[in-house]
């Protein structure tokens, strides 16, 4: 199996007056694990359905492996789709499910059985072929869906939030497994999800979408450390937001006038004096009880939630702003209690100033 690249050229999709996807350019490299991340209703599934051929774009063209896909139905595209609810055929035994694509291609029954056996081995379901899908567990059904899609030897595998129905432990396990299968077969995976954890752990690259627009396409690390828009900054991982006006600014740094007073932050987007800005600080970059950092503040602990590896503290400043802090659990973390007055701060390079814009809703 060989992966192919997927190129979207000014692709848009409208349903009546509603524009689901604004004109979009996107290039997915052959053989990569590419995720499209966004809240529900952002248009990510629409993109997937256009790539798979169930929807025709209102404008623009889609090419897979250099071949334009206009007028090519889903049954003749080099893609295979894994549905959110998996859509296994409940009345067929597992092996027939897996071999269904081969059946459609006129492969003789003996070869189908053999091939289904091989694929079930790949997804660690050896010997389960005779069962009905309903007799399998959630994770096993998941793997049947993967095997069924791989059976048609697609160049691009499209996955529409296939893990969303699983419980947390299984979901984490399946992430590793999906990633392993992708590395093994080497084809392009396009993975749709609203779960940033899934996207960050599995993907080579991620596109973050909001309201029909792709906000940023980047590696997971870049996306987390250098978000380009307020939406990405708040949708991927947690972030504290301080609104303010840009004051003075010099070589990549700026000072913003916020309700907490002047805050110094990195200015990668080159915001100029007087612009409306948002300053983002990750909770794990805020330090308690430090002195002599760029931004020095104090507040009262109003809430403490232990997550295990860290405790999340909500600090209320005298100005009435709430700042979240992740306090790494080295043991003895319980020293800080609700009601304590604490001083805290963060370095200017750990704060990021972006032009004010739409935030992700929780």
């Amino acid at each position, binding site marked *: 199996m060989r992966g192919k690249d997927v190129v979207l050229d000014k692709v848009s999709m409208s349903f009546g007056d509603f524009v689901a996807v604004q004109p979009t350019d996107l290039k997915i490299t052959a053989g990569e694990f590419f995720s499209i991340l966004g809240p529900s209703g952002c248009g990510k599934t629409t993109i997937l359905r256009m790539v*798979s051929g169930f929807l025709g774009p209102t404008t623009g063209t889609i090419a897979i492996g250099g071949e334009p896909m206009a007028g090519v139905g889903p*049954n003749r595209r080099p893609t295979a789709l894994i*549905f*959110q609810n998996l859509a296994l055929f409940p*009345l067929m035994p597992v092996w027939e499910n897996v071999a269904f694509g081969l059946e*459609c291609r006129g492969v003789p029954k003996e070869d189908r059985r053999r091939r289904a056996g091989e694929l079930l081995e790949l997804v660690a379901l050896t010997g389960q072929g005779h069962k009905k899908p309903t007799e399998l567990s959630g994770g096993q059904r998941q793997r049947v869906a993967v095997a069924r899609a791989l059976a048609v030897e697609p160049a691009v595998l499209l996955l529409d939030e296939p893990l969303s129905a699983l419980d947390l432990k299984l979901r984490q396990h399946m992430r590793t497994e999906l990633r392993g299968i992708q590395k093994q077969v080497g084809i392009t995976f396009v993975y749709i999800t609203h779960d940033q954890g899934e996207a960050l752990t599995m993907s080579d690259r991620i596109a973050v979408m909001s309201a029909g627009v792709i906000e940023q396409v980047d590696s997971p690390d870049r996306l987390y450390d250098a978000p380009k828009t307020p939406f990405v900054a708040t949708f991927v991982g947690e972030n504290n937001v301080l609104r303010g006006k840009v004051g003075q600014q010099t070589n990549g740094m700026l000072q913003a006038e916020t309700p907490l007073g002047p805050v110094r932050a990195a200015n990668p987007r080159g915001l100029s004096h007087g612009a409306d800005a948002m300053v983002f600080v990750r909770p794990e970059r805020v330090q308690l009880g430090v002195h002599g950092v760029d931004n020095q503040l104090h507040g009262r602990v109003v809430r403490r939630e232990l997550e295990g590896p860290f405790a999340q503290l909500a600090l209320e400043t005298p100005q009435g702003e709430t700042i979240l802090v992740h306090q790494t659990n080295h043991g003895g973390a319980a020293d800080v209690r609700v009601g304590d007055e604490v001083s805290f701060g963060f370095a200017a390079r750990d704060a990021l100033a972006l032009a004010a814009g739409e935030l992700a809703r929780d």
Partner: protein
Amino acid sequence: MHSLVQTYGKALTTGIWLLAAIWVLGLIVLPQLFVLEQSLWWKEKSADEFEVTQRIDRLYNDVMLWQLDLSSAAPAQKTELEQKIADAEVEIARLEDMEIAAVKVYGLRNYTRMSSLHFQIFVKTIGYAALVTLLALVACYPVAYTVAQLATPNKAALLMLGLIIPYAINELLRVYAWLMILDYQGVINSFLAWLGLVDLEAKTWIPFLEYPGSVFVALIYAYVLFMVFPMYNTIETLDKNQIEAARDLGASTWRIHWRVVIPHAKPGIAVGCIMTFMLSAGSYSVPQVMTRGKSGDWFSQLIYRQFFESFNWNQGAAYSFTLLLVCIAFIFLMMTVFRVGIRDIAK
């Protein structure tokens, strides 16, 4: 049962069960038992008994005549006439006792003594009903699929309304509508005449009503809902993703239906076939109206005649019970063919 009591309380639950029991007993079990009993005996007519019957008939005639005379008779003759009538009535009662006491013979003769003509009609009717079922299935499957899977909810509601509205009209009127369409000088023949293809004056019309096909058309139209609705209900529950998944994996339209939609819709198809078959096999009015005696009888018409023209209830009961047995056999056949259990059908 326990949950029923919890939901409705003891009194209401008892009421519900009682009503259900009365319904089943009074409207299903007892009539069927009565028919079964009727079908298992007949009147043995000896030459002697025939004479008794004739004498009873003659006495009844006499009594009627005397009663007529009585109204215009002189008072002197009145008592004499009244005496005569009273004597005759005693004699009638005696003879009728004799008749009733002598007749009943139990056995299976009513079942085994079907004439070859009647048997032909019986086989033909079963064959026709099966054919009607098949045609209705072929005609209704695309309709049910389209409404259930392709149409938007609004369109589906409209289409369903379109299917249901004709059923607000009396069944006979609907059948007569087909009669008007297919008649010698009906809509189709008039249209053909207008095109110059047939000549109504010279009676070169196409005699649609003389073909069994005309009964088929009317039957399918009369019972189309019973085929469409069960199928629609099952196809509607099919996850659209399964159809898309099959298409995505490269399945042709035919394969999607054969491998995904039809297996899912099997209980609905089975129920639709059973209902259409039973209704067609037992339909009286449609063949009666559509054939007008011009093409052969259906078995249901035979049964009617046994009851209401020959006054041979025993033979009629045997005929109708035979039909019932065939229908039950058909149910089991469908359940085997479609591999569905009673549970699936009940759903």
